[in-house]
């Protein structure tokens, strides 16, 4: 099983090298690709020095476009498992094994590491908690399966998931929509409790001024997504 860690990074020069090194220690068999999303700092050089493969985007695509670049790389290069890890250090590489385990065991197609299933103590602002709770309820309602954390990007998929995300991945604020999208395409989802750290550097891509737009845009995308027909993935072509 070939495993790839995908690290989207935008101006994360201060923390990305540590994350890459920690992955090499925690998961020595896992290759690491850092997608530099048009950073203006030394993110790409730091990642390369730490031993990662670096895909440098010519300008900032936003988190969705950056992550999808990683999935396209994973698809083209024949990886069996892809796991997303944040460049800011909030996803401890020592927890990667727990997230990958259901994929390795073949019991799920997509596995998300979540903060709210009783492990670790994650502190977050009240408004953020309310937003997370709201979307968890909405997504649970849509996919008729309980999800507790729709904002976590600590997520592993198998080849089926790589195929889907390489052709269809939500832009702007992808985490919430990803679960609904994966469910729509028949992926088996699982949540795994993990410990997360406070971010070492950088800031959340969801800032306060954008939160109203965030809520409206994601709600619209979730509701319309219910009425969409599934996309054809490159995997469908392979099976033919």
């Amino acid at each position, binding site marked *: 099983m070939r495993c790839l860690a995908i690290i989207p990074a935008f101006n994360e020069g201060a923390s990305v090298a540590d994350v890459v090194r920690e992955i090499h220690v925690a998961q020595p068999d896992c290759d690491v690709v850092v997608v530099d999303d048009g950073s203006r700092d030394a993110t790409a050089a730091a990642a390369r020095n730490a031993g990662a493969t670096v895909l440098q985007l*010519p*300008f900032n695509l936003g988190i969705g476009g950056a992550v999808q670049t990683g999935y396209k790389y994973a698809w083209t290069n024949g990886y069996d498992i892809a796991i997303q890890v944040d460049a800011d250090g909030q996803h401890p590489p020592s927890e990667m094994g727990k997230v990958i385990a259901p994929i390795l065991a073949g019991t799920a197609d997509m596995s998300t590491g979540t903060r709210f299933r009783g492990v670790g103590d994650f502190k977050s602002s009240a408004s953020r908690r309310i937003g997370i709770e709201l979307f968890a309820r909405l997504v649970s309602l849509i996919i008729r399966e309980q999800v507790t954390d729709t904002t976590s990007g600590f997520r592993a998929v198998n080849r089926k998931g790589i195929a889907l995300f390489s052709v269809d991945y939500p*832009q*702007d604020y992808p985490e919430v929509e990803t679960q609904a999208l994966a469910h729509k395409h028949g992926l088996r989802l699982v949540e795994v409790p993990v410990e997360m750290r406070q971010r070492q550097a950088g800031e959340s891509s969801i800032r306060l001024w954008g939160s109203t*737009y965030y809520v*409206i*845009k994601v709600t*619209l*995308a979730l509701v*319309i997504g219910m*009425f*969409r027909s599934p996309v054809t993935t490159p995997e469908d072509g392979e099976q033919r």
Partner: protein
Amino acid sequence: MTPVAVSIAATVASLVLLLAVLELVRRRRLREKYALLWILTAIVLLILSVWRGAVDSIAGALGVSYGPAVIFAIGALFVLVVLLHYSTVISALTDRTVTLAQDVALLEQRVESLEAAAGETTDEPTSNQQ
């Protein structure tokens, strides 16, 4: 008072706009990000069309003698905002296209020099070397 026929026609038109935008998003022809302004436009027009009292009181306050003109004016204002927004989007896309073309040219040059170097080491004819 706004004529009933005008209110009905305006309501139908705003509903068609709203449904058209939602259908375009569903078919992935329009991104959610760019649909939001259109949806806002359609909803505001829909409210003004259905809520006839509002149009008449706005018209009265502005001294406009023909009520439905208020719907047209507000509709036109929203279209202007959408157009201005798209102008900024097009400008950003232009910048990106320039960057992409430049990066492709630089990559092509790098590939050519790599091919040339690889050709020299294996003593193959480098016929397409310029």
